[in-house]
């Protein structure tokens, strides 16, 4: 199958209503390589679906440009706007958007009936059957969408997307409506499908687990701005800011607010609850200057447990959750500081010390 590169330049989108102007996308720029599985990750309302709709041609951006392969599909300065039908893209929606009055066969065939190149009925039938066979839904062709399960509907939606061999796949949270187990199965199948078809895919999700497992690269979006864009492992290991740090990871990274204080040869993060001793070699030289505000980030699985006096801070365990293969140890301090530790062992006592390995500490300005 053909696949295309995508180039987004300074894309902005605002909505005007009676309440005023809402800027949903603020100067977004990025590119996607041919055949890449690119994930847009962010919380609800961050603008990721609006961005996808702009790429698909379902929304007109307020300014900026979009190029798919060699074709400029949007350029607000040159007043170029190519209709969705002419962009050679396919989209899978969160609700699947299957046409309820059509059979599975008719749903998959529908894009072929709209193409400029007119296929005969026999050709359409053959293409639909080949697609159904590929997705293992051949036995469902005469059913209506209401007679299908969630997973089957999703396959039909994917079938409708791939039948005309588009150069770009757009997926808007296609796994959200599935239960947890089915979601896990479909995630793997989706990745395998994209790999086999080698088609450029832009995938939108709010689930960081989906993003981490599916994406070749992730763009984390918040408030219409890309916070960080990199490979999943890089985003996980080196989050660019507290938002990315707190959004990626389950449970999320511990973010401890405080003031960086240097006394003698020791550096503390001091807040209303405690002084967290930080190892000097964890901190870059420029950050050793005392700051009025600072955030320390450390992932739950990176924190070690020791005896009181051995670590960064002595604490009392509040709650221990047994999640099967490991324990989640929650510490709720008196004045609001919360820390979560993920450990394979349950602590022997409620009074423990938290040890922060220097290479695992992330320092952010507040």
């Amino acid at each position, binding site marked *: 199958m053909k696949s295309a590169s995508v180039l987004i330049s300074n894309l902005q989108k605002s909505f005007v209503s009676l309440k005023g102007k809402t800027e949903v996308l603020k100067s977004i720029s990025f590119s996607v390589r041919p055949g890449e599985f690119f994930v847009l990750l962010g919380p609800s309302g961050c603008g990721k679906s609006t961005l996808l*709709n702009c790429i*698909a*041609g*379902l929304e007109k951006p307020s300014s900026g440009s979009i190029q798919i392969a060699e074709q400029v599909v949007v350029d607000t300065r040159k007043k170029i706007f190519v*209709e*969705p*039908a002419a962009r050679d*893209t*396919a*989209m899978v*929606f*969160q*609700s699947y*958007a299957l*046409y*309820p*009055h059509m059979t599975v066969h008719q749903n998959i065939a*529908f*894009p072929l009936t*709209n*193409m400029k190149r007119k296929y005969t009925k026999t050709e359409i039938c053959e293409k639909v059957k080949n697609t159904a066979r590929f997705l293992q839904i051949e036995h469902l062709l005469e059913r209506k969408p209401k007679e299908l399960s969630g997973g089957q509907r999703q396959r039909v939606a994917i079938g*409708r997307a791939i039948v*005309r061999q588009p150069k770009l796949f*757009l997926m808007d949270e296609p796994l959200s409506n599935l239960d947890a187990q089915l979601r896990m199965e479909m995630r793997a199948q989706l990745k395998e499908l994209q790999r086999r078809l080698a088609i450029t895919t832009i995938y939108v999700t709010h689930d960081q687990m989906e993003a981490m497992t599916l994406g070749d690269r992730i763009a984390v979006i918040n408030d219409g701005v890309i916070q960080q864009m990199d490979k999943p492992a890089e985003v996980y290991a080196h989050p660019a800011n507290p938002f990315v740090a707190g959004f990626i990871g389950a449970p999320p990274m511990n973010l401890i607010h405080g003031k960086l204080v240097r006394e003698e040869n020791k550096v503390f993060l001091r807040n209303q609850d405690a002084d967290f001793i930080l190892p000097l070699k964890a901190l870059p030289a420029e950050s050793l200057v005392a700051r009025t505000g600072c955030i320390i980030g450390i992932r739950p699985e990176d924190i070690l447990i020791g005896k009181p006096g051995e670590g960064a801070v002595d604490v009392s365990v509040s709650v221990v959750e047994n999640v099967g293969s490991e324990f989640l140890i929650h510490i709720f301090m008196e004045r609001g500081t919360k820390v979560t530790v993920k450990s394979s062992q349950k602590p022997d006592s409620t009074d423990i010390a938290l040890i922060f390995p220097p290479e695992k500490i992330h320092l952010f300005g507040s």
Partner: protein
Amino acid sequence: MVRTGICILVLFTLLPVVWMLWISLVPQPDFLFTGETAYSLDNYKNILTSKSLHFIDYLRNSLIISIVAAGMVTFLSSFAGYAVSRMRFPGNIAMPLAILALSMFPPISIVGYLYRVFASMGMLNTYGALILPYIALAVPLSLWIIMSYFAQIPRDLDKAGFVDGAGRYRVLFKIILPIALPGIFSAFLLVFIACFNEFLFALMFTVDFRAQTVPVGIALFEGLHGEIPWGNIMAASAVASIPLIALTLLFQKYVIHGLMTGSVRG
């Protein structure tokens, strides 16, 4: 208690109908006084065969006018409802509200002006004199029914259609309208019933059997010596109800589906 209430309600609703049928089957309407209860179909034979009564003409006129008016109204409302519910343009909120506000004018306030207009155009006693005002009066009702129904259809279906390569018209005819059929049938049926039963305009704008409709025709039934032929009137009313009942039974599943769709979140 509930069953008693339902029984009372059913009796209350059906009693006039039963009474109408009873009167239509007896030769004399004062049978309760005379005691003559020999049932027959003479009244029905009378209205269906008597040329002087012109009942068949009235029925034909009513059916043609109601079907044409309901069809035109539904056609216009479908396009307007889709545009208002799916497309953004200046006035897409104000327009249906304005249509609704204008429809609140009581028909009797405009009947005189309409009479003069149709008279000057030579349209009195024609189908056009009834079809055109019926369309104008029924579009607000139909528009709001169809608009509400379109609003229940997920917009993702339109988007999917566009991305699948269909233009606006193809999305409307191939995707949205087939899904909206129950709502459209509901609107058609309601408008048909309203046009079929309309009396004021039919009385004012028609003169004789060439354009008069069933309600006016029945109201003008007269006996040989000026008495009111109740038997004929009731028989005519019973026969006139048949198209309405038949259409309702034929389309009831669509009507119920159309009316219930808005009450349950999909």
